[in-house]
């Protein structure tokens, strides 16, 4: 059970949060300009890395804010947490 440091609320138990998949996949600004393949890439394709992964998390049962997390999926170490819109930390 992770202890997650919500950037708005501080450390809270994992059960207050919801994982939201891979981070930094921006919704295309002009979807109609995209081919089926390009749209499918945005819509369906996710990396699912073993190792350091950038993820979105939501403090669903707390402040309801979304934020980003850098997590090593091989040992669940949370390496960094930063707000939406902020630049990911250098690796």
């Amino acid at each position, binding site marked *: *059970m992770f202890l997650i440091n919500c950037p708005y609320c501080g450390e809270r*138990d994992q059960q207050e949060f919801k994982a939201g998949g891979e981070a930094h996949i921006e919704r*295309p600004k*002009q*979807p*109609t300009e995209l081919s*089926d393949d390009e*749209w499918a890439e945005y819509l369906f394709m996710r990396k699912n890395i073993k190792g350091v992964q950038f993820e979105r998390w939501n403090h669903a049962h707390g402040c309801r804010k*979304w934020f980003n997390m850098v997590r090593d999926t091989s040992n*669940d170490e949370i390496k960094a947490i930063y707000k939406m819109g902020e630049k990911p930390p250098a690796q």
Partner: protein
Amino acid sequence: MTKNLRVKSSEYIDETNRISFKFNGKTYHGFKGDTLASALLANDVHLVGRSFKYHRPRGIMTSGSEEPNAIVQVNPGTNRTEPNVRATEVEIYEGLEASSQNCWPSVEFDIGGINNFLSPFFPAGFYYKTFMWPASFWEKYEFFIRHSAGLGKSPTTTDPDIYDHRNVHCDVLVVGAGISGIMAAKNAAKNNFKTLLVEEKNELGGSTIYENNEFNKIDNKAPSEWLKKEIEELKNIKNLEIKTRTSVAAYHQYNYLLARENLTDHLEAKDKTNKIRQRLLKIRAKKVILAAGALERPLIFNNNDRPGIMLSSAIKKYSEFYGVACGSKNVFFTNNDSAYESAISLYNKGINVEAIIDIREQSESKIVKKVKEAGIKIYWSHSIVDTTGYKRLNSISIMKLSNDGTSVTGSKISISCDCLGVAGGWTPAVHLYTQSGSKLKFDEEKKVFLPNQNTSEQISVGSCGGDFKIDEIIKNLNQKLKDTLNINETDLDSIKVEIDQENSKRNIWLLPSDKPIGKTKPFVDYQNDATAKDIKLALREGFKSIEHVKRYTTTGMGTDQGKLGNMHALGIIADTAGVKMGELGTTTFRPPYTPLTFGTIVGRNVGKFFDIFRRTPMNDWHVENKAKFENVGQWKRAWYYPINGETMHQAVQRESKAARESAGILDASTLGKIDIQGSDASEFLNRVYTNAWSKLAIGKCRYGLMLNEDGMVYDDGVTTRLGENHYIMTTTTGGAANVLGKLEDYLQTEWPELDVYLTSVTDHYATASLCGPNSKKILKKIIPDLDLSDENFPHMSFKESKIGNIQCRIMRISFTGEHSYEINVQASYGKDLWEKCIEAGKEFNITPYGTETMHLLRAEKGFIIVGQDTDGTMTPIDLQMDWIVSKKKYDFIGKRSLYRSDTMREDRKQLVGLLTDDPNIVLEEGAQIVSELNQSPVEMLGHVTSSYFSPNLKKSIALAVVRGGKDMMGKKLFVPMENKNINVTVANPVFYDEKNERLNA
């Protein structure tokens, strides 16, 4: 007459407090402080159970939670009965009853014992190999296998006890209150760390408080005396909480641990009532100090499982702590010095020790010399090759070990005995450590797996960290405490320790016999009857991974999870396969460390607290009026209101007719309501709904369809514009929370530039939906001064008004196709509003209707229910709702996906109406639809999604999704059922009032 084997008074046993208890129906006596195991041993009862597979007689083997054999059914036949309880952990109390498991008719005479003699026919994998064929026989096999499987009996009545959960936060959690744990907790607390010390036993001090080796000294005192003084001092330390009878079950990442605190299991029945039996502590600790100790290993030799064969350390504990001798003619079998301490303990109490069999060539430690001086015969370089005694050990045979330890030589010596203590060295209890995700490393010299790579703030101290002698325990504990707590000095700095040095080691995982291995029974896992022979067979059959060998042989898969024999299993695999143990690794230690009761896991979440449910403000009225309820998400919604013993069908037919003929009323409070405000609210709605919102006038309502980014219908509902920058959105009952979550996601992550604020107000409003041709007259009675003319208050519009002095919001919207109003008031006035409507509607025979009638009425109109007529694979085009998809808007959620090659296929499943040729046959929802009857296999074209008998149309109607259904209008299809084929015709899904004339009726 049973023998009394009490040997001396012990300060932990209250001999003035005599307790009687029953075991297998017979009454015995023990004292306050005894465990069931110690009390039985004091009565010379060793035979307590039968093994799982061969039903071999088994006795008490240990004194702790690692016990594999002495597992009993506590209080059988009562509502507090519990199976698979370790006798070594049950504290006795007046009236306790316990019985053996896995035996019939009794532990003394067990029919299943035949398996022992048939054991050559039950090798590893027997069940896998034997019951594979013929496949059709599996059902017959299964009956017998299931019958003979399982250990204890689960209770059949409701558990009368209370269980509890508690969240605990601390700076330092210390697991285990042996010498290391006590000193760690003491020093942490003294340095202002909020400290919690948990201990699974009822007494603090671990094995040190009954340590008897006179050659070990701390500050010139016996370690037990020294530690008792330290324990006494704990009482005066602030910041320190101590919980005994508390066993850590799981150690998760980020120092989150679950522990079970046992509060009443040791009390008499009369003292158990109305108290919390067990409490699950959910502990989040900044730092964890594991001081879990070590488990003594047995030795693996032929017939090493007879009642009377025990761990040497257990014999010592029974003698020193409980004051019980486990036998009158004792022998020890060892590969290290600790058996000598047990022998001296018995010797000092005048109990006969016949001999010590030691596989080492010699040892020069002081304790060994003392044993020699006591005249106890020591057989160096010898091994036990066999034992005898079916229900109780009566002799052992020993032979000289070869130099390489792989065979025995010379002549066989037989020694008569009734108790054998085995000492195979110590295994650090690293279970919790590895559960935390931390990694182990094999120490070749000590032959143990030790903590190596920590993943959280934790240290392992004492013997679970690999330190077995008091001097190294103190020294390493001191340094680790300083490092982890960041302190400069501790109470341990000035301690002087003297110890008796052990100076020789020999480790043989599987001891040889004079018989070939195939003719021996060297048990590795006592509970599951896995022998060294089985492990070797698994290797011969090609299993290589330790995890596979474990599952194939069931080694380590009992309730004890192989706490005793797992290391031997690994050792035997490594030796046989010729690999290093470090490379082999261990099996995964999974939680719980010791079994938990279901009660502890669920805590207070039982009965009506099992799951959350929500009720509307009008709920009491529904209950008083005998409504039947259905679950919709977490809500309890009124389903239908039967009167005079009506069936559901009769009630729904009556309600449906009344709603169309005069007036009906529905509790619509459960619909999700989201308040949307901000200068970009209109733009936001444009992006989340498929249709256009910018031009919606203030005071008007509009139906919206929300898609997922993949183009599939996600939710629907009516949204009303309350002001320039203010909307109220309604969602489906079940979808409310998810819709809010999804909208927040887009707002925060994709469109942070939008000035929009979302608030869930579902619970803030109660909603009554008035419908039917007389609804207008009823509303007029309730709010006489509101102009209800079509000009002032047309369909799809909104008015703010007052009922008396209560503010209300009224939407003229309709889910039934009738003229209708949804009246919203502050939730606390919900029941008043409802009763007012009912009162006002009396002269119009206003009929309350539930969700079933609502579903029927909307189906007559062909309105979809998201989640019933859609399933996450339906686009608006599939639903024939093209009209709601804006062609002009540049973008909205899911728009691009509507133009993917797959979503544009003509032969997708599309929503259509279905009419049965016989108007009285009502189709089953979920029934399959085909176009051919004489084909096999036949292509499934789709299925029925909604189906009702319409009382207003006097015929059966259905909605269905059918492949290419859009172009099938009028086509004849079939719904094949078990006994008949139903002929149907594809129809327009709007069955009733196609021109929407009734909305303004």
